[in-house]
């Protein structure tokens, strides 16, 4: 580092005006020299240089984006799409510091487990006055029904625990929050690590970082050993609120990584005291539930009656020990912010130890002293009301009226309020790709602990925890919520020596022989895959037709020909158009060749891009995406990339104003859809899930093609070669036709190609054959020796097609008899195919009716 006095080293250039922070700095010591544990990383970063860092950051961003790493709730809304930003500079913790922090985190998990055990058991802490009743019983996370008889099987309640931590201005650690129901972020932490290791291999390969993969393996072991029966392969499911929830990406990610079935409340049912999953093969027993649903919503029988996410009877099944839920229902009480004020005393009373990790300064307003103090210096505190989870009051940012209301509430129900001291955090460097320099950032960190798998069956006093050596850091005011942040960081815990690199970080952890996607495929997943196929295909055929129509529009405009196909094409697209609209004379003032007809038709066609049209492309895509997200764990990474690419298209598609731009969008969309279906065929195991996708797709395509043929050959206003050409182009068969028939378009040849030729994937004959094969391989619920409805419908259509006397159809243009025969044929094909969709749905999908309450009780929301 010895350089000539006036030369700027690469490191100094990167640092720019980073130095100079008065409080604790993670990177620099009091003499503005880099701390020892940063040195290696700093050297690497300086060696890469700003240009490379910018490029690598972009690379990381692309990887994240392609993998669809998101955590925002309204992802389906194209305007809201947002992945997070990942900083290429990690948060670094030295080995020595980690040892202290780790000990504190372990103790905290142990303490909370003891507390939980007591709160739902003897409640000694309340009877002895250690915790006020008002603190516990006003929190919606205290479940009275979890406090009934002691459970029949003793298992840890707090399996998995997330702790939010900051480093303060003085360099001390402070805990700012606990996540005890279903701590989010482990999946993100691993995904960040994987992404950065790919983007910055030179830095990650040799750095002495503690590896994360072992932690999830331990979690898997832990969950598997929870099962009472100790079955060889316990059935573990991850219960998610569904694709609408903010954490859904991570739910799918974890389910995939850990090889659990991703289920929603509707997929589960309690029968005979057991929890079972509705699958294609019937009910399959569930042993362990890793739940991602908050306490009050888990069981509409014993908890909130208005919950549609939960499973009726779940608590009773858990109470009898027939299913284990991680974390146990009721653990949400530990998320009470006010507990922080009591933890030092509780730690002494419950563990006989001093609390190692201090909490952020907290006052519970239920005690008179605390209330007086908070009221006298309201601006210094952040207030939380337990009856309004998530709501934060900051007096310094409130108007006079709301401040008066707040003071009144504090007087009336002081025990509902917890005051947390506003804190300033330490700073750590982050790389800004705009300024190309390191900048000071304040962050909050989340760490994860897990009960030691080997201690699972031991009594509570002997249970220990382990902590994942790494975590998640996010940018923002110290203690700000993760979900509101836009920039996250990897957390490095340094090991004394380089760690062996575990290259197969994303290898599944489950046992090797598992029959996922077999008969144990949840019915809901089969249904979503089916509709994914149908909507994808509908989007494709609509898109192609629209593309041809736009091309035709441009052509017509140039030719100014009298006749036009457009009314027929609009009909095919199901766009209503009043012919009167078109007959009005040219609009005065509009330059010559642009006719009103052109303008009206163009507007109608471009409307297909509008967000608000029920059958428009964005609406169809919305259905497509919703179904794809519901089966996120069944689609490969590349497949997901194709969906993300589509999503980007649709971000701007509703603003399409010009015909040419519209055509370009459609070209891209058709290619992405082809990539999507191609990848599904290439990467999905050809098991039931894939078959349902394929069946959905080909039912849709059969129906679409039949309707199109009917239009082109029978009902069109302007039948003839131009229209037939469009039909062939829409089905991408124009080239095939030319090569094969080497002639002008002729209806009979078109029928041959699109109806009868079983070697042409676009022909009805081929599609029926494919549907027949797929349906024959679906599991049949009964063991009847007879063909089921679905098979009979396909046979009916196939026979109709096979028995056609082609000679009768020979002269469609000239003979009314031939036209009638064709009309009859097409209708005889359309009818069984329309029924097929319902028949499949009836035989295989679950049709879960929403459970209803015997007595409807709506709690009044007054307060």
């Amino acid at each position: 580092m010895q350089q000539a006095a006036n030369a700027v080293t690469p490191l100094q250039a990167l640092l720019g005006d980073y130095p100079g922070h008065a409080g604790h700095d993670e990177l620099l010591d009091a003499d503005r020299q880099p701390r020892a544990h940063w040195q290696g990383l700093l050297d690497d970063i300086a060696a890469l240089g700003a240009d490379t860092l910018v490029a690598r950051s972009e690379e990381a961003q692309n990887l994240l984006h392609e993998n669809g790493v998101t955590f925002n709730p309204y992802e389906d809304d194209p305007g809201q799409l947002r992945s997070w930003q990942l900083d290429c500079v990690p948060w670094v913790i030295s080995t020595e510091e980690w040892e202290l922090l780790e000990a504190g985190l372990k103790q905290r998990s142990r303490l909370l487990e003891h507390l939980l055990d007591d709160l739902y058991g003897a409640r000694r802490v309340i009877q002895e006055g250690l915790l006020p009743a008002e603190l516990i019983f006003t929190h919606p996370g205290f479940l009275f029904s979890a406090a009934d008889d002691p459970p029949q099987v003793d298992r840890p309640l707090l399996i998995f625990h997330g702790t939010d931590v900051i480093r303060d201005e003085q360099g001390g650690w402070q805990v700012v929050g606990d996540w005890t129901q279903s701590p989010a972020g482990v999946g993100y932490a691993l995904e960040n690590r994987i992404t950065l290791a790919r983007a910055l291999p030179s830095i990650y390969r040799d750095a002495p970082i503690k590896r994360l993969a072992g932690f999830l393996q331990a979690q898997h072991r832990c969950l598997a050993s929870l099962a009472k029966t100790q079955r060889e392969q316990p059935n573990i499911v991850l219960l998610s609120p569904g694709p609408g929830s903010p954490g859904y990406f991570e739910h799918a990610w974890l389910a995939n990584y850990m090889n659990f079935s991703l289920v929603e409340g509707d997929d589960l049912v309690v029968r005979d005291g057991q929890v079972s999953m509705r699958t294609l093969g019937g009910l399959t027993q569930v042993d362990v539930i890793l739940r991602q649903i908050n306490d009050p919503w888990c069981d509409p029988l014993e908890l909130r009656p208005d919950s549609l996410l939960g499973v009726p009877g779940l608590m009773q099944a858990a109470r009898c020990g027939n299913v284990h839920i991680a974390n146990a229902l009721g653990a949400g009480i530990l998320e009470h912010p006010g507990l922080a004020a009591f933890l030092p005393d509780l730690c002494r009373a419950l563990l006989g130890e001093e609390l190692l990790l201090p909490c952020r300064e907290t006052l519970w307003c239920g005690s008179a002293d605390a209330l007086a103090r908070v009221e006298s210096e309201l601006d210094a505190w952040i207030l939380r009301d337990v009856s309004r989870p998530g709501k934060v009051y900051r007096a310094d940012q409130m108007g006079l009226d709301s401040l008066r209301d707040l003071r009144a509430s504090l007087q009336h129900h002081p025990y509902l309020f917890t005051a947390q001291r506003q804190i300033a955090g330490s700073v750590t460097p982050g790389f800004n790709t705009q300024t190309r320099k390191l900048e000071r950032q304040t962050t909050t960190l989340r760490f994860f602990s897990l009960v030691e798998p080997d201690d699972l069956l031991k009594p509570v006093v002997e249970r220990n925890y382990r902590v994942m050596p790494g975590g998640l850091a996010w940018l923002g005011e110290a203690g700000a919520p993760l979900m509101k942040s836009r920039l996250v960081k990897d957390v490095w815990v340094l090991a004394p020596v380089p760690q062996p690199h575990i290259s197969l970080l994303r290898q599944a952890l489950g046992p090797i022989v598992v029959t996922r996607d077999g008969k144990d495929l949840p019915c809901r997943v089969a249904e979503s895959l089916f509709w994914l196929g149908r909507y994808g295909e509908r989007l494709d055929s609509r898109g192609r037709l629209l593309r041809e129509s736009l091309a035709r529009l441009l052509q017509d405009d140039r030719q100014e020909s009298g006749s036009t196909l457009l009314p027929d094409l609009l009909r095919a697209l199901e766009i209503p158009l009043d012919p009167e609209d078109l007959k009005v004379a040219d609009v005065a003032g509009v330059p010559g060749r642009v006719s009103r007809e052109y303008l009206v038709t163009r507007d109608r066609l471009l409307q297909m891009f509008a967000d608000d049209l029920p059958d428009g492309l964005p609406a169809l895509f919305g259905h497509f995406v919703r179904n794809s997200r519901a089966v996120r764990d069944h689609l490969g990474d590349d497949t997901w990339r194709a969906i993300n690419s589509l999503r980007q298209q649709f971000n701007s598609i509703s603003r399409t104003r010009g015909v040419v731009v519209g055509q370009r969008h459609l070209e891209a969309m058709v290619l992405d859809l082809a990539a999507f279906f191609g990848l599904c065929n290439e990467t999905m195991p050809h098991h039931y899930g894939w078959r349902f996708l394929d069946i959905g797709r080909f039912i849709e395509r059969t129906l679409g093609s039949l309707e199109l043929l009917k239009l082109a050959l029978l009902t069109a206003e302007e039948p003839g070669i131009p229209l037939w050409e469009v039909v062939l182009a829409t089905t991408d068969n124009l080239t095939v036709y030319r090569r094969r028939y080497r002639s002008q378009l002729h209806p009979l040849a078109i029928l041959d190609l699109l109806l009868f030729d079983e070697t042409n994937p676009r022909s009805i004959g081929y599609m029926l054959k494919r549907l027949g094969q797929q349906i024959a391989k679906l599991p049949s619920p009964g063991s009847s020796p007879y063909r089921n409805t679905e098979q009979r419908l396909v046979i009916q259509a196939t026979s109709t097609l096979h028995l056609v006397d082609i000679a009768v159809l020979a002269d469609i243009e000239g003979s009314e008899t031939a036209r009638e025969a064709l009309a009859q044929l097409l209708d005889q094909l359309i009818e069984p195919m329309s029924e097929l969709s319902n028949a499949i749905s009836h035989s295989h999908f679950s049709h879960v009716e929403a459970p209803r309450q015997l007595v409807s009780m709506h709690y009044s929301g007054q307060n």
Partner: protein
Amino acid sequence: MKYQLRHTTHYEYSGSVTLSHNEARILPRSLPWQDCNNTRLVISPTPDRLRERTDFFGNRVVYFSIESLHDSLDVTVSSDIVTRPRLASDFFSSIAWESAVGELQQDPRMTNRDCLEARLYVLSSPFIHQQGWLADYALDCFTPGRNLVDAVLQLNSKIFNEFIYDPEFTTVATPLADVLSSKRGVCQDFAHLIIGCLRSLGLAARYISGYMETSPPPGEVKLLGADATHAWAAVFIPGWGWLEIDPTNGCVPDERYIVLGWGRDFADVTPLKGVMTGGGDHVLSVAVDVIPLREEASLL
């Protein structure tokens, strides 16, 4: 007193129910002044699964599921009940109501266990929220320095006198504001109301579900099934215990009252609740008999 208790709940569904999970809090609990003998629970169709447990409040809860197709549900409990005079009959306490409030707000480390346990019942609950206007309604009974028991009994009479018993008016969850403004309701509403008033003043009060022996009009024979479930309240008197009050009848419950269980409000002691799949609309009928047994009759 000795009673033969019989309580039948019958649901008739318009469509078939394929699966139902239920919770019943209809088994009477034993108390120092109440014995429950030969308690039987008969459910039709026969549940596939049935488990009894004791809940947070000490009530008996029965979970049962019916897992095959059914069009009706019939739950009948019967029990031979013996009741004795409650302690309250010769009761005296001179504590002022503000002192009671003060005791309930003491530092938890400085106070006794009964008081600590009662503090749960000062707080708002699913159906009953502390409100300034509820306290206002009760304030003419709770004048400064007044004896707690006197004030409570006056409030009990006040509700009895000012409100009209009207089964047509209310549903399971009529908001207290509506009950107060219309001055109408049923026993459950009046129990919620008095609890709401007491809690809004800072006192501890709980909800009791049970039955009460009714007498036929003079000269008439008591009809079968004519009794009903009943609900009343209890208020915590520091240093003494829980004093029961019945604002529907303006009296203090005696041996004619049979206790099923208690909780913070109706939600904690709903006699029968369930979540079912299918079923369509349903028709509910309830029949309750509280038949007094004379000594010689019970010997037969």
